């Protein structure tokens, strides 16, 4: 797969994402500057974490108006793979490409630590090879990560198997104390109904290097590369 990592002013996880895709997974990977309008033939787009436009106004609120976003929308509408991590997830929600919103953490503090998540569906390329009973250790780092959507949306997400990840304890049990930010239903990540646009608050690219003693995040990327386009 050819990956494109979109760089907004204030993105700061772009290099980390490129490192994993290019150096660890040996995938062709390019950076796409937010002022660009050419996706360079990428099969998969990633909006990385960071503080696009300094999180001014609201996380992700300004980035959605970047010139490249029109092309990103087209890419998604055509069924292309699109993943937003952390700030990227926030941008996708602001852009209406994913349902729901990311609010200030319930404890009102930024939080960075390892958490456990488990997948809620095997119906997507990103999660197909991830066992639902396995707790994945993946770090979070955000101030605005509390997933919120109205009841109707949540019901639809469940019905269509769009909740791709939820916070859990190390035994993969859903638990209140495993929820690091007050997200509804412990939701850590969702996808759209067509299952080609994904957003998640935890950072899989931060758990993808044996030199850092945690490779749980690689499972997602391996699954994606093995299963994309095989629907």
């Amino acid at each position, binding site marked *: 797969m050819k990956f494109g990592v979109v760089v907004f002013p204030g993105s*700061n996880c772009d290099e980390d994402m490129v490192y994993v895709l290019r150096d660890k997974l040996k995938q062709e990977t390019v950076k796409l500057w937010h002022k660009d309008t050419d996706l360079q033939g990428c099969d998969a787009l990633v909006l990385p974490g*960071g*503080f696009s436009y300094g999180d001014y106004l609201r996380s992700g609120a300004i980035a959605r108006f970047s010139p490249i976003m029109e092309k990103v929308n087209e890419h998604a509408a055509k069924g292309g793979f699109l993943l937003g991590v952390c700030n990227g997830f926030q941008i996708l929600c602001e852009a209406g490409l994913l349902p729901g919103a990311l609010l200030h953490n319930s404890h009102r*503090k930024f939080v*960075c630590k390892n958490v456990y998540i488990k997948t809620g569906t095997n119906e997507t390329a990103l999660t197909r090879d991830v066992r639902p009973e396995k707790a994945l250790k993946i770090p979070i780092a955000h101030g605005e990560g509390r997933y919120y959507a109205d009841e109707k949306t949540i019901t639809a997400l469940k019905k269509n198997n769009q909740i791709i990840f939820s916070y859990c304890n190390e035994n993969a049990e859903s638990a209140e104390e495993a929820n690091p930010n007050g997200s509804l239903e412990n939701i850590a990540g969702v996808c759209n109904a067509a299952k080609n646009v994904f957003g998640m608050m935890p950072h899989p690219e931060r758990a993808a290097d044996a030199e850092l003693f945690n490779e749980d995040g690689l499972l997602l990327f391996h699954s994606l590369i093995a299963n994309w386009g095989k629907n």
Partner: protein
Amino acid sequence: MQHTHQETLPTLDTAKKLGLLPEEFEKIKSILGRTPNFTELSIYSVMWSEHCSYKNSIIWLKTLPKDGPHMLAKAGEENAGLVDIGEGLGCAFKIESHNHPSAIEPYQGAATGVGGINRDIFTMGARPIAQLNSLRFGDIKSAKTQWIMKGVVKGIGNYGNAFGVPTVGGEVFFDDCYNVNPLVNAMSVGIVKKGETVSATSYGAGNPVFIVGSATGKDGIHGATFASADITENSADDLPAVQVGDPFQEKLLLEATLEVIKTGAVIGMQDMGAAGITCSTSEMSAKGQHGMDIWLHKVPTRQQGMKPFEILLSESQERMLIVVEKGKEEDVKKVFEKWDLNCEQIGIVTTGDRLKYYMFDELVADVPAETLVLGGGAPVYKREYKEPAYYAEAKKFRIEMVQEPDNYKTVMNHLIAHPNIASKRWVYNQYDSMVGTINQSTNQPSDAAIVNIKNTKKSLALTVDCNSRYVNADPEIGCAIAVSEAARNIVCSGGEPSAITNCLNFGNPYNPEVYWQFVGSIKGMSAACTKFRTPVTGGNVSFYNQSSFEGPVFPTPTIGMLGLLQDKKNQTSLSFKNEGDCIYLIGDCKNDINSSEYVYSFHKVKNTPAPYFNLEEEYLVQQAVKAVIKKQLIESAHDCSDGGLFVCLMESSFQHRLGFEIACDKHIRKDAFLFGESQSRVVVSVKKENEIALVDELKKQEVKFSKLGFVKSKEVLIDGDFYGAIEEFKNSYDTSIEKTVEG
């Protein structure tokens, strides 16, 4: 000089108000051959402030060991020290204080401290890859301390997190002496390819001078002068002296700066911190032995009608001064345009040594650059010092004056939940510690933070250390301990100490007893740095850390140390790994509770000598630890520090929820054995099959050692007595600070 309009010349009174001494006012008059105008006087007052000139410390700083085999830039040569780490790479690192701003406006004070230290690194062309900080607050139970602490931590977090550089390590310490005057020391570490560094210099008459980054506002005017006075009740009136930071601008400035260096158009560059345009223009000009004409009206400002002295002294953040090779202006402008940042030519390099500042056609200041700077015309003072009475008094302390506790469990509970010992996770979870994907200590905690240098065999080991209670008890020994502990942390993590940066936080230098603490600290630091061959690459001095009503803070010479792992496979965790492994102590226990957390906060005996310390023994212990790590004989290594052996064993147990069973040394008191903080001790665990090899190696190293016991599952047994489950201690350790702060 010509004046286009009449101006009343300032008097000695004005000079004093700006923080200058009468003799300094005289010196300025004799340098200029006339009475300075107000703008010029302001320039001298900030450049000759303690903060910029080091006038009361430089004599002693010069005695510190500065050179080592791996130094690429010695102390004072550049904005930060530069160490050769092999692979064609250099490591730039520095620590700096932002104490006074943080006392008045904790959030912005701490945030701009982080911004400033990172600019010091990337202005050299190095990309920051890791941050650390050392924080000291007053009584954690007081509302004021909690307000300061919450603000400082949020400020560091919001700035550092958005900037995108992980905070990988640090320390937090609480004592009443910091009630009014907290200490906020921030360290940044960056990597640069050898030969791609940029110098803070200016030369080549006719070369244009650019200001880039944020617009200049009225914030932080006279900040350097403000940082060079005691904190008083009226300090909050100095609020405009505290700067305001914007990490988003800093992130853009970082990327743009590193990109502009690649164009090859840059002659020299310096960030604007203390004393803003004044400091950068004068230091760069003095270094390059040229002059400058600066057109202040060209400086992009945030508000209209700023006076010349305000533009000159503004400490607005996220700005740089760049001297560009004539003819390459467009290359530079293009980069800053891409990043949507200001890039304005504000002057030109001239021959000679004069700095001439113009506001439109008016020459508002005309001063020789050299006379302003450290190493040039800035004053240098020898201060008197005298041993304080408390020092002799402390020496009278004997362990027998303190009764052994009846109930050891009470002491254990006290220590494990004490804010100086308990987990600082409430603090560090607010920092992004993993961005950059280089933090090797997240999942393998170690005494020093281990930072991956991607695509090489090597890693960095980083730590900040200073037990200021020890330094207060005995500055010379205490500061030698601070260096030793830093080195010990690096060694225990599998690294080799390379070099240090220091942040010297003291009270008012005009107080001879404070100055005695300063001098002693420098002597102790020199001795230890010489022994470990860790030159002092730079840092900063922060005097006047005292309030008019509570006296000076503990002398706090914070040591930031850089170490290197030649092979990242040597990384050693502090955590016990397997039930049944043997636990050994490398080093020797003493019948000593001096300056321990135990004697200080449990028995409330506040004035005792520094704990036992011998530099030679320390060195031997570290050599032995290095040897057993290199031979891959041990499973874990953790140094004994605050809280003594008991806390050390606890911390090794927590990660994998293991426990321990040990026997005490009957030759010394049990409280000294468990809670004493005598130095130069490291706890290691070893698999049974490696035990003989470990013992042989330690004998060969001619170091004292003893077998303490075994790693157990989940519980704590001492001399056969059960003291509780690890889970119970861990819960108390983990939640103590958040319970206090969150209520």
